[in-house]
């Protein structure tokens, strides 16, 4: 099962939003971490640390099957993300079609965030998922899952 396109798109836009918010010199994985942390804060309040950790662990398990670049990533007991940015050297060396480590980090980040959002979509539906995302990014304007994320005027 692959990532739902809508969630993949939303993940892309969140990562792009955070990349712009952060310093341009930051690594790709920094944006992923910032998106993840914002979701952890927002969802953690709502479902508790254990609840978030369970969701994140499930999302990571799904994401790993789709993005091998996440092989070293783990979810800590408090729900935080560890090991992002560590790439399996053999994969980069022997499977060039997977792209560079940077590409893998970028794709892995999208897939992980999309999977996490996908789980919310399954459990809570589109409206509530979008509302939770909105509460985590109060500075951004979301019209719907398919629209661009804009900075609020």
């Amino acid at each position, binding site marked *: 099962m692959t990532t739902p396109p809508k969630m993949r798109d939303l993940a892309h836009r969140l990562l792009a939003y955070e990349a712009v918010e952060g310093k341009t010199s930051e690594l790709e994985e920094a944006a992923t971490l910032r998106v993840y942390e914002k979701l952890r804060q927002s969802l*953690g*309040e*709502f*479902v*508790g*640390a*254990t*609840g978030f950790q369970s*969701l994140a662990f499930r999302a990571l398990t799904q994401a790993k099957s789709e993005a091998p670049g996440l092989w070293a990533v783990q979810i800590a007991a408090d729900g935080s993300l560890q090991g992002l940015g560590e790439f399996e050297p053999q994969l980069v060396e022997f499977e060039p079609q997977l792209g560079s480590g940077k590409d893998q980090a970028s794709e892995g980040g999208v897939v992980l965030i999309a999977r996490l959002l996908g789980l*919310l979509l399954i*459990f*809570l*539906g589109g*409206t*509530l998922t979008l*509302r*939770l995302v909105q*509460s985590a990014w109060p500075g951004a304007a979301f019209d719907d899952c398919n629209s661009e994320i804009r900075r609020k005027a």
Partner: protein
Amino acid sequence: MNTEDRVAINKLPTGVPGLDEIVGGGLPEFSFNIIAGAPGSGKTTLAHQFVFANATPERPALYFTVLGESSIKMLRYQQQYTFFDSAKLPNSIRFINLSQVVLEKDLGAVLEQITKEIEKSNPAVVVVDSFRTMVRKPQSDLDLQSFIQRLALFLASWQATTFLIGEYAEDELRDNPIFTVADGLFWLRQTPERNSIVRKLQIIKLRGQDSVPGLHTFRITDAGVQAFSRTFGLTGHLKDPPSHRRLSFGIPELDKMLGGGVREGDSVLVAGSSGTGKSVLATQFIAEGIRQGEPGIVAVFEERPQAYAERATTLGLDLETPQKDGKLEILYLRPLDLSVDETMHSILEAVQRIGAKRLVIDSLAGFEMALSPGFRADFRESLYRMIFALTGIGVTILSTVEVDESFTEFPFSTYSISFLTDDIIRLRYVSIDGQLRKIMVVIKMRGGNHAKDIREYEITSRGVVILGKRLTDYQGLISGIPVRSDRSDPSEGPSQDTGIEHKT
């Protein structure tokens, strides 16, 4: 202290249809309430309805979840209810999970966390779900009491109306300090009664409020909890003054027997065995009302509305057009686990919807069967409440009841409810000249004179038709096996009694 000096307690809408009436007009603002009951009794749903009805971005609701149902699954299920408004999340309603602090720390830390969140949000409503799981860890009585006391004081000081939800057993009522501190105690129960489940709600206490005592039935539908007050939502409704108007059956001879018709606001019982034409008479009563501009309700339990209307057509009575015109509603009420209060709610809603003046309940036996077994035991008492409430708002009720045909007795009802009715019309079979014929007699009219005549009638394509004059050639007609007497006086018309009220 005069009235002007007293503090006015603001009443908040509960968001639960029917519950405002039960709690005395709304929930007291800043009250500290417990919703108790077994798992599955509807506690969380009730709290959600209150939260969605009262939370605003300026004064939001904080919904603290602890152990138990996960927040994600709770929202997954709760959003199926029609009252759930996603737009209220998260600005007006915030869900905060306290599991970690409850599991890892003591009650002091829990209170600190709650305090911090309340200071941050300044909520109007606070819910802790489930409070029971929050204090389940072994605590000394003093610690627990102190925690509850401090929590209650803090929440009241912050002007929050609070609900603590808990799975409590009724034998805990005496010893648990939480029940002493609480201003309001809502107890929800669901009990199996043979194959039916009956949900009941009791307001065990509610400080500062004149709540309706007793057990009120409630139902959980896709709209959430719907409560049915024992007072049928008619608290404070002034009884209409008695009317002197007479309502016609559309059967002139019967109207004459009734002294001009049924007195408006009466409860009429039409009793007879199967096939005697009770439903036909009821249909004629309702059709005549519509003809005279009096909207009507027919509550049927034994056949579908369509079949009821089709049968009326065979009598030359059109019940389809008035239904389309909003002058008639045929209610089919037969889920087998109804309470009288719920049935009454449906009827009252329909009465108010179309401004009904006449109501037919066809039949009491079907009505009884539609009730959950537990309510059947209280059927007589329930009928009393229902009839009193409906006639109180000026509705004239005609109920049909099937009685076993006996050739030794002349019963009016199998429910011993004749005292609840103002007027009784008895139909019965009688064996005359080798034929099974039908006779009709007005047994009682509480508000006036009526004919004492025993009249023969037939059911024709025009409905009930009363034949000829009163039967004077026979004795023992009400026994069903009369004997011919030599005396006859066919010239006499319907006779009126002389003011003697017939008691039954």
